[in-house]
């Protein structure tokens, strides 16, 4: 019993830290609300879809940035997609970088874009790691027989 409670507390603390540090926002909570018995893996599915999408988009961005001349419109479209996805699951920090990235695209600022791409990669990696860790913890809790606490 203690184990479950401990695991749950760990999970809870971790999740809270994610919110506190701005990796996730309210939207993620909404997502969690959509998960129920009829849809038990909803969140995981969506998140993994997000990972796929983001990786694809980031590599597309890298490709576009290395081309000469630079197609800012195309980049803007990709960033827009990424922004949409990240806001859908509540990946706040990624979303913020996307916003800044879009401004640089509008200004056709190559340096800014490059910087943002780097930031994007960082943020994405960070949030991916955190989410995967969170999922692992959830699995542990479920494995131990407990249930995932709703914040």
């Amino acid at each position, binding site marked *: 019993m203690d184990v479950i409670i401990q695991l749950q507390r760990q999970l809870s603390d971790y999740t809270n830290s994610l919110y506190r540090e701005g990796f996730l926002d309210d939207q993620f909570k909404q997502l969690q*609300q*959509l998960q129920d018995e009829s849809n038990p893996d909803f969140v995981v599915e*969506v998140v993994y879809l997000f990972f796929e*999408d983001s990786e694809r988009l980031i590599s597309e961005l890298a490709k576009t940035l290395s081309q000469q001349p630079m197609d800012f419109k195309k980049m803007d479209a990709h960033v827009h997609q990424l922004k949409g996805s990240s*806001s859908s699951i509540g990946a706040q920090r990624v979303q913020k970088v996307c916003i800044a990235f879009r401004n640089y695209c509008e200004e056709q600022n190559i340096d800014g874009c490059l910087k943002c791409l780097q930031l994007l990669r960082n943020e994405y990696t960070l949030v991916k790691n955190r989410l995967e860790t969170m999922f692992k913890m959830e699995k542990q809790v479920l494995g131990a027989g407990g249930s995932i606490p709703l914040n």
Partner: protein
Amino acid sequence: MESCNCIEPQWPADELLMRYQYISDFFIALAYFSIPLELIYFVKKSAVFPYRWVLVQFGAFIVLCGATHLINLWTFTMHSRTVAVVMTTAKVLTAVVSCATALMLVHIIPDSLSVKTRELFLKNKAAELDREMGLIRTQEETGRHVRMLTHEIRSTLDRHTILKTTLAELSRTLALEECALWMPTRSGVELQLSYTLRLPNPVGFTVPILLPVINQVFSTNRAVKISPNSPVARLRPTGKYMPGEVVAVRVPLLHLSNFQINDWPELSTKRYALMVLMLPSDSARQRHVHELELVEVVADQVAVALSHAAILEESMRARDLLMDQNVALDLARREAETAIRARNDFLAVMNHEMRTPTHAIIALSSLLQETELTPEQRLMVETILKSSNLLATLINDVLDLSRLEDGSLQLDIATFNLHSLFREVLNLIKPITSVKRLFATLSLAPDIPEYAISDEKRLMQIMLNVVGNAVKFTKEGGISITAFVAKSDSLRDPRAPEFFPVPSDSHFYLRVQVKDSGSGINPQDIPQLFTKFAQSQTLATRNSGGGGLGLAICKRFVNLMEGQIWLESDGLGKGCTAIFMIKLGIPGRSSEAKLPLVSRVPADHVQTTFPGLKVLLMDDNGVSRMVTKGLLLQLGCEVTTVSAGDECLRVISNEHRVAFMDVSIPGKDIYEVAVRIHEKFSKRLDRPLIIALTANADRVMKENCLRVGMDGVVQKPISVDKMRSVLSELLDHGVLLEAQ
């Protein structure tokens, strides 16, 4: 003559006498016979003699008398008895007839005498009528002259023509030697010779107006004979002739003010002109009274004509003036429009130029916030962020202000939580106050409702501005915010005397006071504070300058909310209180038809799930699509998903009640899809409701969506509750009244 029957000698001694008698008798008889013949002859000639029978009698009498005398001739000699008998018969007849005639004459002579008198009477009458006829004819003639003159005078509105024509016609009618008009000068103390008949342009003759002769003429409206030696009659400096009679008459100069609307013109005017008429010296014409009357009538007509001419002149002048003013105003308006356009262009450009770096600052500061920072650094970064947000707000304000001035700004009225607004204001200023070591307190009266209807964003702006000013100018102590519902006795404030608020069932007046213990304001400077960009001397000595748009915009917003805002201060160093009162709507009791949805609707009004509701979702972003699908599934809907416009058109059917379209699809596909859907479903009942989902639901977007026939716009991110209320409203009303 005696006759005797004795034997007579033939011729006695007095035979001569006998012979004379004989001749006389003969002639008498002749006369006696010829007179009736003459009578008969003349009577036959004349047809009018009424007493024929008398004449016959008279004739008979004369004839018989003649016969008697004739027969007498035979009695001078021996005559027989037959002659004597005849003589006697004749005498008897004569006697009878003459007596009859005498009797008749008695009867007739008075009659014929009276005929005579009647004849005399008729003759007199005829003479009188002749005289009168002459008079009437003369009058009619003068009347014709007056009419003609009047017609001439009134046919023109030119003052000079009127007067010249008057003089010419009058002279012609009355055969005048000279005719002149003396007009009063501007000063009114002299009469100046203005027009004469013979001299075309008289110059220089003036006469003082107070002469007795002039007074005499002016005091009556009749024409007056004046002495030829009076100054007004001396019209020619070298008098080579003997002047005849001189007549003068006054001509009233009427002003527009003399013509009352329903009255005759008042003749109690003070200004008269003098018309002088000189008659020829050898005139045999008598100045008839009616000719003088003619003069008076003409004078009156001239007065009226002159006043008409004057009125016309005035109105022409006024019209010219108005036209000039019109041109000037038009020019001014065009200049103003140009200025406004220039200003708007300037604002638009500046706006854009200013926004870009501000965004960069905000974005990078927020990114900086997420890195590893020490607490002091974090606080600094937060302040930078807050300041740059305020700066962005200020830039928006500039645009707002220009829209406010144009009157094109409209409040976004919605229901919001009033209490949480106040709390948020407090939270926003707490960092600054804690850095400056000031206290900040908030006290809300218990009767303030939790929800109110107004423009939340603008109210927040007002509060932040007012509170921000309070904090800015306070170095020690603190600020206190109090808010309460204004009751009618406290609604009237001596500082805002023209403010007459009337609370009603659907509205209440919120009064907010922000008191600070800062450096205060000189009461004289207070009116200037609400003027944009104004800075007084004392304000400029403060740290960051108090000028700017803030208070001006606040005032405008407060006015839009039908309220009042003002500042009170006891003077420099004694702190300052900002007070504003605004009109807020009470939710649930407002009569507004378009009531937007409240963010938290009581559950019993809204369906919790929508089992079997078929919806179509179009979104090209996989993640976003999956999330929204999950949302809809959670609410019990049957969801079909598509990722592009043509797929959507292929799949959509009348079984789908709602079609959600994510607007982030590039290009204008989504608008085209909406139009195609309209085309596909001709009947309104068949067509699915089309809702746009977008992260950016601004006015332009809303308008574009509504223009292509969409039924609503929903702002992302969408929570489960939001989607639930959206679907509920769609199913109830068939349309989304306000974007969420």
